[in-house]
């Protein structure tokens, strides 16, 4: 059995990538399953998805803890998260990265494949959604599935949801990424901060979970904890305002789902501690004063 873990950010389509991979494997006669890890998911938040591929029926219903392959949709994630956590001996990391495999530093040196999936996606789809492109890299790097099966798997999953035209373009993104994937070995030695999570025992857990602002070893919890818990790192795009064009109408302030637009005297500003780079501000700006930059 092959176990695969996908790392992405909410909105990058890690779940559909996992499902497409399962569909591709199914087309080649394998038994396969794919499932998300449902967390407090929001656009831009780090998310996980999982897939298993085997010759016969798969009974394991747990999350994947010891993947044979990890697939990373976001170029910044490997700097923040140890994507090799639990990766088996001889396992491989497949990364969306503009770097060559030997230029990439992770926790340890393992087989690694890279492809600049973001650029492929921008060229093929016109958006930085990398879930289809990265599957082309998977096919090339692992040799487990034929690229034709992966393309068909993408069409199987994407077609009914976003239409056949877009599904076929996503299949093309996978084919393009297949051609541009390089395999090699990454370097090791990157250290990661142990992930901090507040896990109180029953005696410490507030009765009824009624939690005032509380300082814990894992940081602030309870009401107002977002003062410390910055979420700006989820961002791929940064909003830039042209002060010459801005008329300070504050439509962006009104629409920002994260209250990350600051109202200024003359022009608006952005609170990049919380801005997720969703681009709603640029979309609603009546004078096109906001530009999203990578």
């Amino acid at each position: 059995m092959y176990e695969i873990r996908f790392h992405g950010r909410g909105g990058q389509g890690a779940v559909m990538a996992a499902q497409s991979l399962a569909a591709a494997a199914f087309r080649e006669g394998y038994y396969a399953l794919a499932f998300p890890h449902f967390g407090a998911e929001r656009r831009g938040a780090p998310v996980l998805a999982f897939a298993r591929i085997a010759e016969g029926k798969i009974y394991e219903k747990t999350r994947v803890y010891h993947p044979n392959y990890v697939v990373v949709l976001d170029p910044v994630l490997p700097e923040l998260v140890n994507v090799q956590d639990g990766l088996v001996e001889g396992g491989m990391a497949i990364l969306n990265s503009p770097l060559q495999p030997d230029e990439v530093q992770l926790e340890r040196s393992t087989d690694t494949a890279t492809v600049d999936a973001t650029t492929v996606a921008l060229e093929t789809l016109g958006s930085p959604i990398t879930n289809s492109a990265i599957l082309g890299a998977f096919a090339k790097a692992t040799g487990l599935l034929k690229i034709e099966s992966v393309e068909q798997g993408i069409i199987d999953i994407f077609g009914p949801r976003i239409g056949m035209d877009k599904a076929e373009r996503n299949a093309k993104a996978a084919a393009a990424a297949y051609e541009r994937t390089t395999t090699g070995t990454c370097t090791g030695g990157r250290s990661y901060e142990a992930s901090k999570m507040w896990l109180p025992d029953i005696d410490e857990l507030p009765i009824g979970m009624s939690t005032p602002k509380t300082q814990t070893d894992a940081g602030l919890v309870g009401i107002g904890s977002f003062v410390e818990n910055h979420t700006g790192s989820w961002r791929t795009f940064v909003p830039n305002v042209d002060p010459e064009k801005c008329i300070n109408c504050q439509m962006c302030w009104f629409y920002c789902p994260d209250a990350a637009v600051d109202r200024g005297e003359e022009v608006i500003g952005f609170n990049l501690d919380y801005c997720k780079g969703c681009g709603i501000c640029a979309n609603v700006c009546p004078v096109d004063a906001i530009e999203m930059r990578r």
Partner: protein
Amino acid sequence: MKRVVTGNYAAAYGAKVCKPDVVAAYPITPQTFIVEHISEFVNDGEMDTQFVRMDSEHSAMSACVSASATGVRTFTATASQGLALMHEILFIASAQRLPVVMPVVNRTVAGPIGIWVEYNDTMPQRDTGWLQVYVEDNQEVLDMTIQAFKIAEDHDVLLPMMVNLDAFILSHTVEPVDLIEQEEVDRFLPPYDPIANLLPETPMAVGTFSPPEYIQEVRYQTDVAMRKAEAVIERVNREFAEQFGRDYHGMLEEYRTDDADVILVTLGTVTSTARAVVDRMREAGKKVGIVKLRFFRPYPLEQIREIASRVDAIGFYDRSVSYGVGGPSYIEGRHALYGYTIPVMNFLAGIGGRDVMSEDVELMFDMLLKAAKEGKAEKDIVWIGTRGVNP
């Protein structure tokens, strides 16, 4: 001061003398008079409470949860479909450890639509984390409404509590009740001392989205609180008995069980009928007794085991059925008596509000005596008074 009042009045009076800060309610037969009496008390200036008329029971319980989270004493009442509509919010009240007190006038949940007594409203709520007591007369309605606040608000418990009274047989029946004076209740019931108040000056995260990393611990805490409630119930019962001279014996009451050959475990008003039957059968030389099961949550598992070890057969009376299995009290009893070899029987009677007659109870005892003598019951689950079905 003794007066002849209905069960509904006794519940409303109980609320009045416990001085809840908030009563949020919605009327439903046969409970309507409880909240109507309260609205009269408030209107007449006899009761200083914020009385909130809601648009449904779901809203009423939601309002109670919100009010209770701010650290104030909170009361409501409902029945049947109303309780079913509250179902979703019942879990929230217990998980947030909010000691809301609520009389439930037990009434058939449709279908078929009926307004008479059946326990298919409260029994399905047994896993919501609410304490449940079933009462026998109108005095007990009042006394348990008062005790409920003291039990639920105890810091070892901090769980909501239902006081369950039979539709019409109690709710609309008048009988003499000692309406305890306000000063006496004030002496018995301390002010509510909440552990967390959601107030502007003390903000906190309440009722938050919680991933699997937390919910299992919350469930465990609640389970511990429900188990601890047993000792609190016994203590509050003793305190009440000392002050008012009425001893309800806490979790359950035994009646003429000392040398009994067989015991029937009853619930609610059938207990009263059964007491009279026991007296008559004792006179005829039959060694029968009853256990009045008062609390269904928490459940007196150890006490049931101890009692069963003294007899040759035990029966559980139920006023609702879990289809294909048996009555809820029987299911719980069988669980308690795992490993016991005596006959354990289930008697289903009075479903949908059908009268449970003395002859019905006598039949239950006779069947138990026969099972005791033979060492086994002919059948475990017996429907009594069902047309076309031989018991």
